[in-house]
């Protein structure tokens, strides 16, 4: 009987701990919308497609939208100098990747994942990576999903 009560107490304590951590996690996700980067003037128009939740948006990095996308210039008139990141091959991958390579060294990228080396300037970073969502889908990929991703372009 005595042992059982101990077990119950332990179980309840673990549950409380887990729940506590769980709510803390969700609270973090909610507050990430309140990152400083999302207070910028760009969000007045780009609320729907511009909210930055990813690691590049964290306050300690002191990024603004223009750090990656360039100064506003004549935007929204066209043509303008805003840098756009997308998988579209018409938007030259080499030009797109210049921005990322300002901070990310090719050697370090290759150490993390060898496929960086072979795609270098032939595929844009944005073809695989998404920086605005809270987590980049590439970071949570299983081996099988990874090979399926190769298939999307390489299958004939």
């Amino acid at each position, binding site marked *: 009987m005595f042992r059982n009560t101990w077990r119950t107490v332990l179980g309840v304590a673990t549950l409380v701990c887990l729940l506590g951590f769980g709510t803390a996690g969700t609270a973090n996700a909610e507050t990430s919308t309140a990152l400083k980067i999302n207070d910028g003037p760009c969000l007045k128009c780009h609320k729907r497609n511009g909210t930055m939740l990813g690691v590049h948006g964290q306050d300690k990095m002191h990024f603004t939208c223009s750090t990656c996308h360039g100064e506003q210039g004549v935007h929204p008139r066209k043509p303008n100098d805003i840098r756009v990141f997308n998988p579209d091959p018409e938007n030259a991958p080499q030009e797109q990747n210049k921005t990322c390579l300002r901070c990310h060294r090719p050697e370090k990228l290759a150490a993390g994942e*060898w496929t960086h080396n072979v795609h*270098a*300037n032939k595929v844009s970073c944005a073809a695989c990576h998404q920086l605005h969502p809270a987590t980049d889908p590439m970071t949570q990929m299983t081996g099988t999903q990874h090979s399926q991703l190769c*298939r999307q372009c*390489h299958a004939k």
Partner: protein
Amino acid sequence: MDKSKRQFLQGSGAMIAGISLYVLTNGEVAGEQQKSAVKYAMLHDENKCIGCNACADNCRKVNQVPEGVARLEIIRTGPFGEYPNQYYHFTRKSCEQCEDSPCVHVCPTGAAFKDENTGIVSVNSWKCVGCQYCIAACPYHIRFINPVTKAADKCDFCRETQLKQGKQPACVEACPTKALVFGDLNDPNSEIVKALEENPVYRNKRDLGTHPKLFRIQAKQGGINV
């Protein structure tokens, strides 16, 4: 006396002729048995391979190969060249399906065997006692002890799984770039025979005389065109 000597000579002559005939015909029959109707082989085009590992993934899934061991691996070497024009080489590491297989010769229980109908070297897991003699004998180091069955295991061209259902081996089905070709060497119209005729190929450790049936097209220097 003379008669009996002649009879003896005639008799022994007939016996020798009989024995030699018997041996000859038996030998021919044995030779015919060894020559299988179908002789499966595989070709890995290292130029088409992108190292995505889809083959190894599907092999594991279809043949239920436990984690920690593998029937098939893609060995990646590189990078070669200077950034941003770097490239890798990919080679297939799996059973080479030797025609004269050392593993079969050394197996004391007959668990390692060559299927005479298909030419596929395979393992009878229930016969295997786990002595690992075959693992030591294999010049390609591709055999392993399956931690679940405790028997020696290796690629058998999906003989027990895909081939029984009339499908291609799991790796061939999974390959997105069609870098793997599987087929019958005895069929002059098969895709693999045509590919072997059209391309210069190489095989691993040919000098050992094991006659492996895993052919490879050597990668040319350079990247891959999507």
